């Protein structure tokens, strides 16, 4: 009996030896074992006088040459896909662990959850607020500060600096208190979205044809409203205080050494 059983095992060993990926080898072996068991049961059902040992012999002989079956199985079951699958499973498990342990939710879960939920609301609010400021500066909105618009411009100027396109859209000159302030829609579009950052907005400066310089570290040179940002872009209502109403043009520059030279014509007032 044991010898017979051994003959089934050795047939299975020979037939599956060529499958190099172990999980596949075990699965195929199980499948072949089930198949053999079915065959044995069939023989015993069809020939009730046949002993189990005889049925096993017959079943094994009907399965064919184990070497030939083994070669065919080895051809079908390529190991690299199995290894790749196993590696991909490990990678998924590692990444899940990294995501659970490594993401910022561990340090302050309440604050991070609040931030994750609140930030989109805050962004939407800032966009709405900024649109309201833009409506007042260049449109029909009513200011909630002491000021009166004295000129409106449509510049539509563009320039390249580094890997970025800097554009100036609408503009408006406002009388605010004793001085005049120029507002322009300034937008930066980065070729490389990952380089976008708000800090850049603090280093623009301007000069006019009357020889006045509006340096970036001077009070009154900055922006009104919020800085809007998206993937790879920033937009702001850039502000220059105390611009002379007699100035015919204003040139927008960036840090010393960079060659941004965006000229805004202040003589072409939009009706």
């Amino acid at each position: 009996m044991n010898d017979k059983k051994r003959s089934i095992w050795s047939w299975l060993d020979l037939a599956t030896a060529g499958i190099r990926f172990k999980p596949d080898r075990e699965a195929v072996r199980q499948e072949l074992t089930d198949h053999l068991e079915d065959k044995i049961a069939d023989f015993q059902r069809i020939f009730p006088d046949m002993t189990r040992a005889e049925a096993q012999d017959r079943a094994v002989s009907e399965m064919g040459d184990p070497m030939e079956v083994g070669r065919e199985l080895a051809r079908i079951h390529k190991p690299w896909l199995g290894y790749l699958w196993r590696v991909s499973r490990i990678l998924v498990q590692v990444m899940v662990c990294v995501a659970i342990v490594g993401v910022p939710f561990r340090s302050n879960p309440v604050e991070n959850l609040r931030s994750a939920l609140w930030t989109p609301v805050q962004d939407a609010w800032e966009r709405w607020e900024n649109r309201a400021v833009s409506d007042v500066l260049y449109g029909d909105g009513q200011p909630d500060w002491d000021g009166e618009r004295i000129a409106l411009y449509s510049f539509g100027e563009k320039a390249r600096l580094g890997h970025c396109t800097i554009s100036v859209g609408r503009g408006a000159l406002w009388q605010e208190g004793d001085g005049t302030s120029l507002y322009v829609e300034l937008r930066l579009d980065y070729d490389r979205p990952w380089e976008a950052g708000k800090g850049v907005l603090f280093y623009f400066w301007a000069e006019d044809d009357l020889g006045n310089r509006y340096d970036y570290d001077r009070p009154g040179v900055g922006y009104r409203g919020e800085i809007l940002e998206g993937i790879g872009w920033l937009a702001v209502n850039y502000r220059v205080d105390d611009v002379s109403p007699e100035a015919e043009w204003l040139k927008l520059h960036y840090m010393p050494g960079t060659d941004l030279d965006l000229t805004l014509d202040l003589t072409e007032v939009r009706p």
Partner: protein
Amino acid sequence: MKTVWKNLWAKLPQLPRRWKVVRNLAAVLLLSALCLRLWGWPSLTPYGAFRRLEGEYLLTPSELVLRTGSGKYQAFLTEGENWVSVGRASQMSSYDDFRYKYDVRLHHVLPKAGLIVVALPVAAEDHAMVVAVKGVPKGAVSGELEVEMNKDGMWPESHAFHQLKSAETFTARAEKEENGWFFFHLEQHPLEEYCLLEGILNSMSVWGAVPEFPYRLTLLDEAGNEVERVEGTLPPDQRIQGWR
């Protein structure tokens, strides 16, 4: 519970192995992107972090001229079309989310016009402070630089503050490089136990630029004759900072 999950899993349509690999790799990519997004797309190298800060401040394209330091603290001198910038990247641990990021600073952005004399805030491999010079008059091929240093820019708590001399002049000579730069290596005093230069470099090692020390630069031609003598101060720190 485990059996319930197993049964549920078994009820799901089973994909062929090839598609399982595709699904898993897609999940890995998605999870990697999620983690990187939550970590703020951290830079992998100090110079990568510095380049990103340069990109943010529109100082691109630029070329690396000199790098000092190694490992966690590195300083860079880069040259753009019309400007020169000096900055650093220091690897710091972020207590918010248990990872390392780079504190990157742009200390100086200088127009490439006239004489440029600028010091790198991280010591070179020979433990010297490197002062880079460009824009010298034609004919100058070598030079001598004297920098008067003092303790004013140092933290009183920093390395052996009270044992250091209050002021000292450091001198170095350099030849003109092929790219037109001079790199003066101001060396520490090897025999002194407490050298002012070492103290200054230590106190600058993480945050600061080299203070606005006065310098005197003497430029010589090939025959050793004096071409020009210039006095000035090292440029102020522009303190542009990023966290990458």
